[in-house]
């Protein structure tokens, strides 16, 4: 009975979404208060219904109800309870339900935290989100019903893909989805502002914290995915430029551009049309990502669907959303005038540069990702575009961007002078080049040019960020007081930019100075790699809850002293018979030691993969700093003040509000 109730709740949610997508928008167009007032309760109702539906599906998984076809395909009674729960989003139908639930959740949150927003704005924003919801709920109900029953009821389920049985994977999809879906709020705000014809600083100020929060989730989601790939796939790589990775990276890059251009729209009332366009593109890329991952055009651990109807449906949805929003844009945007003027040398120009580089980088990734698909669809041959393409395009675009991170925050709004900037930055630049170029030699005794360039940029970003902080606190009685006077959003920027520096440091050093060896080891043999010796102590058999494993023990020595003992397993999962490698990692702030078991080679010898990865943790540490920066920026006091001001009717519409 319960699954039918879940299905029923899903259908009711769709009905409410239809109401949410039509009535408040009509009310806003005709000025009917009652119709507009419907937006909030309907959004909450839709959220509660989807929550109920999701809870029922989760219950089916946790209680091993294999009469539900989706649970039978993706779970098993031997699976540990936590993975039975995370298996809910381990397949196509459940992950779409999660998508829809989170979308409704964002809608409910907008309803909750927008008490001071003008009612007509709330009605439009929630109306647009209701329209998006209609698309996804009908996709769910008509092509991918998670509550479908199976007859006869199988004795047990077919198990979750072993690669997904992992703590990192419990959190990765919900985080990433929160990001994907969260950009729908920025999108809804942009469309609402276009419809209302009011693209002013208030609009930018309202949509900024929402966009930043979505971006934070996305940052965390991508970092978790990269971390998972690093330890779970057993190849020690953290980014493969795989199409599904690109699918999440493109909206992230575009979202980063959007955050920066929203700053200009809010503070200087410039770039308004451009910001709206970025919001539309960001959400479109989120949808494109969903299409790529969910339609089955790509084959990877993420792609579950093989039903072509699903691909067509998402493609249609994408076309409708992009087409309709661009139409509204073309209709409304010409009436919007940017009032903020600025000189060639100014922070506006720097932020424009940021946008150009990020958008071009996104476009080049899009090209590399879609080109093989288009060629294949046109029957012009099967090709693959490898990581070298992405590296050789993406890295040169990021170098000037990283340089600009140093200059931008120190440049004044409206108008600045090259002479002043030179004066301020000359010493820092010289010091960064000197220290950064020496760093690889000090750490690794090597003069690789690209590593030197990378560490110069790292030092440059860190040094200029601290310089900015010092300049701002110089006139205060004490450093502490000066620091307390800075806003949270300023510290948000500082943390995020330092995060970029930390990530760049991790990428540069780990990609240049990693050691890697695939070798044959018999029990008792030792392999020396760099400063460490790896001693293979042999294999023992080990039994997990739902797998059998051969577990290898390797002792790692440095200067005759034992550093750590690593265990790596080759598992065979009993239900699917699927083999999997569990890597053994000794992690540290400055280096990871990483071993992964290959295949048995006879006579007790095994193929073993050994890695030494310097500073690899910094890649994810930097991402966490960026996310922290986003949280700080989104929780800035002035967003709460802005709400108060808007409520009192004084408005904060002019661009002259102090920065």
């Amino acid at each position: 009975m319960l699954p039918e109730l879940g299905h029923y709740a899903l259908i009711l949610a769709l009905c409410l979404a239809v109401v949410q997508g039509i009535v408040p928008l009509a009310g806003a167009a005709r000025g009917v208060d009652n119709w507009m007032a419907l937006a909030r309760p309907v959004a909450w109702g839709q959220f509660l219904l989807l929550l109920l539906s999701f809870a029922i599906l989760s219950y089916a998984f946790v209680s091993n109800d294999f009469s539900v076809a989706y649970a039978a395909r993706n779970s098993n009674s031997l699976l540990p309870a936590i993975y039975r729960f995370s298996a809910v989003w381990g397949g196509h139908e459940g992950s779409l339900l999660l998508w829809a639930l989170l979308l409704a959740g964002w809608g409910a949150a907008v309803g909750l935290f927008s008490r001071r927003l003008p009612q007509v704005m709330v009605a439009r924003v929630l109306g647009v989100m209701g329209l998006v919801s209609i698309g996804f709920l009908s996709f769910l109900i008509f092509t991918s019903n998670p509550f479908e029953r199976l007859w006869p009821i199988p004795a047990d389920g077919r198990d979750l893909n072993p690669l997904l049985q992992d703590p990192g994977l419990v959190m990765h999809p919900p985080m990433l989805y929160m990001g994907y879906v969260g950009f729908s709020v920025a999108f809804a705000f942009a469309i609402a502002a276009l419809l209302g014809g009011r693209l002013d600083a208030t609009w930018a100020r309202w949509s900024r914290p929402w966009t930043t929060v979505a971006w934070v989730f996305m940052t965390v989601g991508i970092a978790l995915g990269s971390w998972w790939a690093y330890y779970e796939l057993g190849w020690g790589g953290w980014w493969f430029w795989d199409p599904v990775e690109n699918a999440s990276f493109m909206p992230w890059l575009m979202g980063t551009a959007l955050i920066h251009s929203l700053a200009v729209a809010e503070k200087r009332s410039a770039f308004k049309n451009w910001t709206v366009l970025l919001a539309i593109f960001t959400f479109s890329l989120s949808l494109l990502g969903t299409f790529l991952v969910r339609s089955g055009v790509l084959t990877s651990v993420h792609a579950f669907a093989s039903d072509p109807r699903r691909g067509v449906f998402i493609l249609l949805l994408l076309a409708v959303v992009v087409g309709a929003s661009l139409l509204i844009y073309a209709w409304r945007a010409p009436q919007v005038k940017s009032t903020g003027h600025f000189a060639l040398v100014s922070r506006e120009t720097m932020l424009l540069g940021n946008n150009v580089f990020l958008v071009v980088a996104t476009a080049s990734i899009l090209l590399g990702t879609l080109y093989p698909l288009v060629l294949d669809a046109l029957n012009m041959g099967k090709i693959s575009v490898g990581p070298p393409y992405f590296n050789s395009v993406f890295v040169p675009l990021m170098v000037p961007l990283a340089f600009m991170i140093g200059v931008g925050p120190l440049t004044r709004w409206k108008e600045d002078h090259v002479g002043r900037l030179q004066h301020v930055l000359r010493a820092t630049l010289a010091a960064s080049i000197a220290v950064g170029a020496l760093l690889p030699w000090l750490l690794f005794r090597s003069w690789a040019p690209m590593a030197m360039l990378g560490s110069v940029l790292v030092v440059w970003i860190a040094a200029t960020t601290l310089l900015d902080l010092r300049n701002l606190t110089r006139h205060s009685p004490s450093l502490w007081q000066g620091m307390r006077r800075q806003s949270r959003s300023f510290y948000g920027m500082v943390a995020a930019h330092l995060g970029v520096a930390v990530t760049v440091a991790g990428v540069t050093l780990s990609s240049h100075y990693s050691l890697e060896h695939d070798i044959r080891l018999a029990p008792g043999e030792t392999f020396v790699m760099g400063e460490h010796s790896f001693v293979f102590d042999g294999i023992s058999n080990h039994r997990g809850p739902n797998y059998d494993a051969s577990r290898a023990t390797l002792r790692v020595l440095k200067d005759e002293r034992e550093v750590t003992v690593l265990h790596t397993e080759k598992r065979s999962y009993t239900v699917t018979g699927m083999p999997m490698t569990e890597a053994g990692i000794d992690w540290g702030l400055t280096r990871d030691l990483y071993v992964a078991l290959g295949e048995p080679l006879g006579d007790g010898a095994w193929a073993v993969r050994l890695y030494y990865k310097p500073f690899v943790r910094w890649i994810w540490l930097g991402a966490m700093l960026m996310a922290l920066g986003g949280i700080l920026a989104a929780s800035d006091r002035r967003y709460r003040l802005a709400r108060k001001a808007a409520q009192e009717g004084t408005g904060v519409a002019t661009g002259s509000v102090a920065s």
Partner: protein
Amino acid sequence: MNPKRRNRLLIIALVVSGVGVAVALALVALNENINLFYSPTQVVRGEVPQGHTFRVGGLVREGSVRREGQDLRVSFDVSDGAHTVTVDYTGILPDLFREGQGIVAQGKMNGNGRFVADQVLAKHDENYMPPEVADALKKAEQEGAVANPHGPQ
């Protein structure tokens, strides 16, 4: 020309030249890093580029996987049902590499008609068949049927 207009023009020029450089970079990089997929039949017929990296895929023939010597050299045959190519590889094969399984290898031909792979891909799911491989198998079967209408089906 007034300063405002000059500024705008300069910004546009900067953006256009930046985008131009990026497009050029992207096209050059794309040109150098596209790997075409060939079926074993095409390899045997010599339709593949010499000295250039490409991909070949098919089913790993039963009993063809051979480990040689004391290092990690391995070789195996990849077949699309009509023809086979021998692949040489040094290193650890992916977890899901098995005889009878569909795989894709990336590398170059050496002089002796063997394919030297620097990468062997078998995907994350055991039911998974790389679409290229599925396509190649289908093609080989069709061509076989056309060329040999009275042969065993």
